[in-house]
């Protein structure tokens, strides 16, 4: 039986750990360093099957295993693929969890009433954390486990003390030496050193050849065996402080601290030396927690198992009488990313009915508002100019789409929207904000009247699920007789936009399309659509709402019919620039948590005379207060600053940019940004002049959209 180590076969025997097999073959897993073979130190770490930070003493050797050294002082390579690493996660319950199955752990488990689950590191079951509950999380050979329980007994025993850091091979704790001898590994001539011999100096080249003790004795050897006393493996016990967690056995031992050496490295994980400790002490880091933060001692792989006794000795030497160990927090052991993600399913992002069409056109997809959306297409420059000069399509099937009917429909919408609804004629559209009780903007969209008691509503892509809750909750609160149906997932929508959009509609059989802010139900390219005339891009636009199973046919037909017109498609990146030229804000991107219509410069969207609606009382109150922040339009020469850039006035920050794009048609950068305090005409942003400019920046009269 053999596995691969650095490209060479390594023979192993049944029952060998990877570390034992390597040592039997004369290979130190990391080239050198004192080994404990009990999972306490970082000196046997290897990369196994692409997963780094594996303690080779805790992993059973097996055929087909690929093992690589994990060098000191270098980050291990990241796995190139997650293939084959899909650990499972199990949720269990028990009355008692016992961690550690040495003598004390076995006794605790045997004497317990009720259901008991035990973990033992030697069986490949490493507990990595204890959380409130208590809840115990472990990694095992079969994936991760989380156990909710009434009580936890920590019986993890005690670790043997390590010598100060040496990079020589052939240095072992006495338990490691016993393990190797039991496995038939020849250790040669041994020199045993104890706590009384400290500090010791290991001598040799690559492998230890002699040990010099504190009294000057030089012991020649092939293997140095260290018996430096026991230190409780108390990390899990400390982690469970305040919970139903108790210790049993050696984990509660009083420890004998080793003397601090005059020099050398005491923390193998972070390479912290005695002089580092002195240095941070002199700078005022005079507590265990502060020394840990300043030096990173105790934050590495072994979580202080090697260095903590020396840190305590250091503090004792400085007059700190009872140096407490540092706080223990999960995770106490390394987890692979796959293990950390086991049992977790990330939130799915929805795909429109045109998802595959976007891929077919070579789009770069991105996640936005809970959906996968095309960000850019290959001919990116053409995306913009096809909208401004010809005709273009965009998949807007992600918009929130609702149908509402019933005798209470008008009253519900009048009470929810700050604009008038009752006077909206059948076939007409009104843009509307949606406010909360404080008058802050929650969302925006369209109200389309279908009949006396029926409406079609749209919301932003990210706002649809909230909108349904909002509509239903208020309908119930007001006791109104309405029916509400979320059609977001069952209706596709394609926006046809550009100065030649009307020609394309005619090619598709719609010779008499609706006028601006009107809608009709009509056949477009043989497909029944609700044709909604409005504009977000600033150009003549028609939104075609249709059944999702007909999206692909409609999309392909329009592209084909539009070919003589120079049609192309556009993604979100281009749309954000187009709408910014028109000064249209995007909820959540330009608006803030406390954005009122007044602060957004949209007082026209809230009719305070029409009667009560959600947010009206707050608007009446806040409209009497000084306007202390407002969203304004800005222009500047050169490339756009990073969105979020600070706006300065007389070197004082007075606001920030929310959206910024270079406008190809205006040949300057256009921006929206919040200004706090007095209105000013000029600010500094990104080291350049930003001029307050009324928006819309492009076609301010809206003639192109109404064409």
């Amino acid at each position, binding site marked *: 039986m053999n596995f691969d180590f650095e490209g060479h076969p390594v023979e192993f025997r049944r029952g060998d750990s990877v570390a034992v097999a390597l040592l039997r073959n004369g290979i130190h897993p990391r080239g050198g360093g004192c080994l404990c073979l009990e999972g306490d130190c970082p000196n046997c770490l290897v990369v196994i099957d692409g997963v780094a930070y594996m303690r080779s003493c805790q992993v059973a050797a097996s055929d087909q295993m690929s093992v690589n050294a994990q060098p000191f002082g270098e980050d291990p390579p990241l796995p190139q693929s997650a293939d084959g690493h899909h650990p499972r996660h199990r949720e269990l319950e028990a009355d008692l969890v016992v961690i550690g199955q040495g003598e004390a752990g076995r006794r605790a488990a045997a004497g317990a009433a009720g259901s008991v689950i035990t973990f033992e590191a030697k069986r490949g079951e490493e507990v990595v954390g204890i959380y409130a509950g208590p809840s115990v999380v472990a990694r095992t050979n079969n994936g991760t486990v989380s156990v909710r329980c009434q009580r936890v007994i920590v019986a993890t025993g005690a670790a043997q003390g390590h010598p100060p850091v040496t990079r020589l091979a052939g240095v072992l704790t006495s338990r490691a030496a016993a393990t190797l001898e039991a496995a038939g590994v020849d250790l040669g001539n041994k020199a045993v050193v104890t706590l009384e011999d400290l500090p010791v100096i290991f001598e040799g080249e690559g492998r230890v050849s002699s040990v010099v003790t504190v009294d000057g004795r030089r012991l020649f050897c092939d293997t140095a065996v260290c018996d430096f006393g026991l230190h409780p493996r108390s990390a899990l016990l400390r982690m469970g402080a305040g919970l139903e967690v108790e210790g049993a056995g050696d984990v509660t031992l009083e420890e004998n601290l080793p003397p601090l050496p005059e020099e050398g490295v005491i923390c193998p994980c972070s390479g912290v030396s005695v002089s580092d400790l002195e240095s941070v002490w002199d700078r005022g880091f005079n507590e265990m927690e502060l020394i840990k933060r300043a030096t990173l001692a105790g934050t590495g792989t072994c979580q202080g198992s090697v260095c903590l006794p020396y840190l305590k000795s250091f503090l004792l030497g400085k007059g700190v009488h009872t140096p407490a160990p540092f706080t223990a927090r999960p995770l106490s052991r390394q987890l692979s990313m796959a293990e950390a993600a086991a049992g977790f*399913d990330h*939130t799915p992002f929805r795909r429109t*009915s045109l998802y595959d069409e976007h891929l077919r056109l070579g789009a770069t997809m991105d996640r936005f508002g809970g959906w996968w959306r095309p960000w850019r297409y290959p001919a990116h420059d053409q995306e913009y100019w096809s909208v401004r000069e010809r005709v273009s399509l965009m998949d807007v099937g992600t918009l929130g789409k609702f*149908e509402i009917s019933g005798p209470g429909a008008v009253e519900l919408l009048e009470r929810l929207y700050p604009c008038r609804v009752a006077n909206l004629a059948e076939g007409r559209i009104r843009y509307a904000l949606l406010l909360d009780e404080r008058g802050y903007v929650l969302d925006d969209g369209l109200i389309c009247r279908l009949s006396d008691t029926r409406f079609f509503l749209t919301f932003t892509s990210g706002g649809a699920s909230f909108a349904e809750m909002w509509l239903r909750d208020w309908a119930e609160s007001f006791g109104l007789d309405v029916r509400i149906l979320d059609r977001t997932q069952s209706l596709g929508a394609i926006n046809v936009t550009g100065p030649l959009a009307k020609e394309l509609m005619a090619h598709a059989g719609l010779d008499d399309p609706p006028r601006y802010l009107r809608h009709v139900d009509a056949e477009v390219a043989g497909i029944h659509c609700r044709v909604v005339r409005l504009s977000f891009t600033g150009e003549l636009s028609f939104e075609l709402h249709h059944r999702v199973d007909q999206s692909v046919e409609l999309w392909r037909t329009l592209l084909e019919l539009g070919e003589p017109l120079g049609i192309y498609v556009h993604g979100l990146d281009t749309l954000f620039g187009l709408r910014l030229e028109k000064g249209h804000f995007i909820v959540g991107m330009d608006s803030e948590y406390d954005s009122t219509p007044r602060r957004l410069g949209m007082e026209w969207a809230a009719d305070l005379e029409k009667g009560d609606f959600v947010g009206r009382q707050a608007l009446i109150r806040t409209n009497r207060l000084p306007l202390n922040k407002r969203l304004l339009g800005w222009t500047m020469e050169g490339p756009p600053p990073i969105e979020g850039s600070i706006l300065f006035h007389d070197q004082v920050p007075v606001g920030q940019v929310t959206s910024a794009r270079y406008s190809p048609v205006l040949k300057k950068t256009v921006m929206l940004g919040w200004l706090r305090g007095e209105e000013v005409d000029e600010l500094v942003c990104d080291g350049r002049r930003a001029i307050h400019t009324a928006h819309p920046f492009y076609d301010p009269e809206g003639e192109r959209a109404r064409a």
Partner: protein
Amino acid sequence: MLESISGWRVVASAEALGALTGRVLRLAEDEALIIGGERPELADPDAIVVEDSGWMAVTLSRTELAALLGEGATWSLPEGDGLVQGMLLGVPVKISVKGEGAQLLVLATLGAELSERML
């Protein structure tokens, strides 16, 4: 294995929905999904009835579905017939159980995602 299905989505008074016949999945007190068939007639003048092709579905045996839920859900099938819903592999699904068969439904917008996760 998921396939597109179409039917009728209906929002109406509870009484009107209660009178519906055919393959009616009652999604809520005021809402139902009718798989296939002709446009339903309802005794509610304000009912919203729309053709709905926004779903994907697969029919499996009760045993197959129970195994699927055992792997990817923290809930299980009801003992009798009925409609249950919850997360399967992090994706919201509805399952209509009848006898030894069951139909799993998922929104078409999430169908591909669920298929990929089930592989």
